[in-house]
């Protein structure tokens, strides 16, 4: 009996694989579909799950930019959103769907670096331009020629903040804390270590924590006894805020120099007065005296009833950059041309400042070093 079933099953499987083998006819490398004159852009974003807050900001930034671009009318952009849930397999499926079913022209995202490492090689192989708006770890654009990012890598941001903080606060010896289960924080930590070495600052101790940890008392008690001139922290804002609070409670009142994760209004909101003295380097500075920035903040607030964070701002700029390249390429379907035009983008003046792609498709842009003072990000001079 059982063997009979087995035979049936194997026969079935054979039949299916045969059908698959034989069935392939016609061209498969289809050009992106033309649809009502709008260029179809896929978006892979972390829309549900623990990191949904980031994905949501990105979505809102993109939508705001899309509406503005379409209202201007030089090019038309249609966004196709796919959720990755922050998981690599989901991101792979989403990318495959966008490329092979929706035939998008290019892809914005994904939100996490790990997702990009999983889909990047495949997307690159297919010749689809892809631009990360929130990826800050090392090695992203090394994946291939079609991989771009407009988010400043940590390796460019952190050295700036450490140098400025050293000059300002006369740092000689510091302690480091980083989240060891977060790729962004680990990458940030490596940059911190290297910069400290170059600057000749002594490292008194290194402590780790993990994302979603809530208790930092042990690490900070240890750090308090070392009496550092400053604490370097690499992590996300949620943990960073808790660390700031606990540190102040334990009497660590020195400056805290953070990585990209510090760059969020949420940091100040949840840490309150304890956030004072937090230092971060960022191209996005909401307090900048620039009409473009002010208009963006006002528009965003009007539409979503909250302050934009860096993820929204970077996503907004990313789509604007995409639109410039799209306009120059003059085609809604030519991925190769779009890639060439993207790589040539320079002198774009966005809400995160002056922007150009460098030779390795990373952003070349100015950095503001910010410090929290009386509950507000201000420039550290």
């Amino acid at each position, binding site marked *: 009996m059982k063997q009979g079933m087995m035979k049936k099953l194997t026969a079935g499987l054979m039949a299916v694989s045969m059908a698959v083998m034989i069935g392939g006819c016609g061209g498969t490398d289809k050009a992106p579909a033309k649809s009502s004159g709008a260029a179809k852009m896929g978006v892979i974003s972390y829309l549900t*799950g623990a990191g949904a807050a980031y994905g949501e900001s990105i979505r809102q930034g993109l939508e705001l930019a899309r509406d503005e671009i379409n209202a201007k009318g030089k090019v038309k952009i249609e966004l196709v959103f796919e959720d990755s849930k922050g998981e690599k397999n989901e991101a792979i499926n989403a990318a495959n769907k966008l490329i092979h079913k929706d035939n998008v022209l290019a892809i914005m995202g994904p939100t996490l670096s790990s997702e990009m490492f999983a889909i990047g090689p495949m997307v690159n192989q297919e010749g689809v331009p892809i631009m990360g708006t929130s990826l800050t770890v090392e090695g992203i654009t090394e994946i291939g020629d079609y991989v771009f990012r407009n988010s400043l890598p940590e390796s460019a941001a952190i050295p700036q903040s450490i140098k400025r903080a050293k000059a300002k606060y006369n740092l000689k010896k510091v302690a480091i804390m980083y989240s060891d289960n977060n790729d962004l924080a680990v990458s940030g930590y490596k940059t911190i270590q290297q910069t400290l070495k170059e600057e000749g600052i002594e490292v008194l101790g290194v402590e780790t924590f993990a994302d979603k940890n809530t208790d930092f008392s042990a690490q900070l008690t240890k750090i308090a006894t070392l009496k550092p001139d400053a604490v370097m922290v690499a992590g996300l804002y949620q943990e960073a805020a808790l660390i700031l609070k606990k540190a102040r*409670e334990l009497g660590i009142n020195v400056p805290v120099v953070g990585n990209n994760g510090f760059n969020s209004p949420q940091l100040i909101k949840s840490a309150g007065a304890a956030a004072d003295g937090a230092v971060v380097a960022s191209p996005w500075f909401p307090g900048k005296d620039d009409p473009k920035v002010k208009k963006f903040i006002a528009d965003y607030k009007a539409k979503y009833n909250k302050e934009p964070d860096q993820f929204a701002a970077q996503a907004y700029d990313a789509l604007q950059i995409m639109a410039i390249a799209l306009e120059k390429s003059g085609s809604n379907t030519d991925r190769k041309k779009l890639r060439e035009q993207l790589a040539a983008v320079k002198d774009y003046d966005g809400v995160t400042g002056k922007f150009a792609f460098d030779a390795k498709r990373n952003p070349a842009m100015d950095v503001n070093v910010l410090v929290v003072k009386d509950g507000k990000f201000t420039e550290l001079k």
Partner: protein
Amino acid sequence: MFWQQMVNGITLGSTYSLIALGYTLIFGVLNIVNMAHGEIFMFGAFVGLMIAVHANVGLAGALLAAMATGAVLGYLMEVLALRPLRRRKVSELAPLISTIGVSIFLESLALRLFGAEAQSFPPVSSTQVFDLAGVKISMVQIIILAISCGLMLVLRFWLEKTKLGKSIRATSENIETANLLGIDTKKIIVLTVMLASALGGGAGVLVGLAFNAIEPTMGITMGFKGLAVLILGGLGNITGAMVGGLLLGVAEIFSVAYGVSSYRDAVAFGMIILLLFLRPEGLFGSKEQQGGR
């Protein structure tokens, strides 16, 4: 630094004990590991937070609201996910899987309702910090320690002295006999689950206060620690839950203070695996209870 770390460890440990209490109560009576306890705890924390922010009722009100939420969730879980399994003979693993289902459901529901961002209680008077000969203790830490110790004592007393408590213990000894003795075991089971869940909800508020971050995945993190304590202390043992929790808290803190902080999250389960080699019934468990039913 040693004493400061000790204070840190005991504070952390008392929150673990609080959570483990709920696990152990349910296990004692139903022989079930309630995998959804962490999520009930998380829901309690959120409801407490909402009440504290919007209704301005202070800590006591938030605590009560959270406990009520926990009790309601516990009741629903009992009726929808546990009772149907008791009616028919199923493997002992069925309730485990069913409560995993409840936990996944509640976690994603919380994501929908409250969002993924961590929220914190409005600053209360408890931000005050005392300095005892260089050891810093915050008011929150004292409150948590007091409440969790108090709860444990009350619970012990209640289980030992009151009629209801005795019925619960009788049911946990042997359901059939308790039935014969005229105890309404069905009611007792519902009550136990509700009580345990109310404790969980209350614990949510306290932990939320202590660590200032309430978010949907906190249930899993804390739930895992509670599970570890459950095994450490011995399944279904209340003293075990108390001592096991404190032990785990101190062990984690000391692993950071005098060891390597990056292995902290492995301490809990590392301890379990070690314990399973040496004393599988747990620190306070009796031999007969070994391995569930």
